C-alpha cells in the first residue's frame, strides 16, 4: 500500500505508523465529563468503507496525516496534513499521482 504524503510524495506503508481513528474528539482538558473522555479514549469507529484515519509519516517527514481510506478496497481518496498545509512547502507536483 502506498500513501501519498503531501510533503514527501507517495511512500510505502512501511514508512507510516497508524495513529488511530481520526474521528475522535478530545474533550476540553479541564472537562470532567467522564462519558466524553471515555468515548475519546476507547470508542473507535470501524466502518466497512471510507474511514477517516490518522497516520504519521514516522519513517519520513514525521508529519501526521489525515487519510481517508476505504477499509474494503484500501483505496485512499484523500491525504492531508492534520495541521493544515504549510504555505511555502506546496505539495510535490511531479509525484502527486499514486
Amino acid at each position, binding site marked *: 500500500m502506498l500513501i501519498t504524503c503531501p510533503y514527501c*510524495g507517495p511512500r510505502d506503508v*512501511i514508512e507510516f505508523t497508524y495513529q488511530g481513528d481520526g474521528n475522535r474528539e478530545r474533550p476540553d482538558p479541564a472537562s470532567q465529563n467522564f462519558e466524553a473522555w471515555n468515548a475519546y479514549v476507547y470508542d473507535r469507529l470501524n466502518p466497512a468503507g471510507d474511514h477517516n484515519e490518522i497516520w504519521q509519516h514516522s519513517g*519520513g*517527514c514525521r508529519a501526521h496525516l489525515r487519510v481517508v481510506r476505504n477499509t474494503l478496497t484500501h483505496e485512499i481518496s484523500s491525504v492531508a496534513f492534520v495541521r493544515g498545509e504549510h*504555505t*511555502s512547502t*506546496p*505539495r510535490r507536483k511531479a*509525484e502527486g499521482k499514486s
Partner: protein
Amino acid sequence: MVERQSPLEPEFHVGSHGNFEHGVEIILTETRPGSIVQLAAWPGEEKKLISGIRTVTGLALPDGAGGGLSDGVKSVFGFAPGKFTVADEAEGLAAAFARVVTPAIGTVTDLSHGRTAIRIAGPKAEWVLAKFFAIDFALPAFPVGAGRSTTHHDVFAQIQRTSADQFDIYVFRSFARSFWKALCHASEEVGYEVQ
C-alpha cells in the same frame, strides 16, 4: 581543539573492496562536516527562515518540498514541512543561526555530533541505495540538491543528492556504524572504494 571521534572508525577501511577487479563503481566516504544544524520555522514563518538561511550560508533555497542545494562546502535541504537541515564544513553554524533565527521565526537545534554524514558516489550509487530505501532515486524524481527523509528498517535517514551520481546520507550517530557496514556489504557486488 579536540577532534571528534568518528563512529565508523573500526569499520572504516580505506582502499578498494568487493568485486573491484572490473573497476570501482562506488566510492564511500564520511564527509565529517563541522556543523550539522536543524532549523524549523513556525507555521507562516518559513520565508523568513529561508531568508535567514541565505544570510548565514549564502545559499538561496529553491521553493517546494524537499528543495535544497549545495555549494560543496555548505549544504541545505528541506526534510519536513518548515524544517531544514544545514551542514557546513566549518564548526559554529548553530551559533551563527542562533543570532539570525529569532524565537519569533523558529528554532535552531545543533546536531553536529548527533548525525553522521556518509557520502556514496559513483555510477552505481542509485543501484546500491535502492537496496536500502523504498524511494525513487532516478534523477527526474530526485533532482540534484533535493533532500528526502526516509528509513531503512529502524535507521532513519535524510538523504541529499549533491550531484547526479552522489548522495549524502545523514543518519543517527548510534546507527552509523551498523548502516556503514550494510552499505559496504551492499556495494561489494559492484566494487567499491573507501576514501
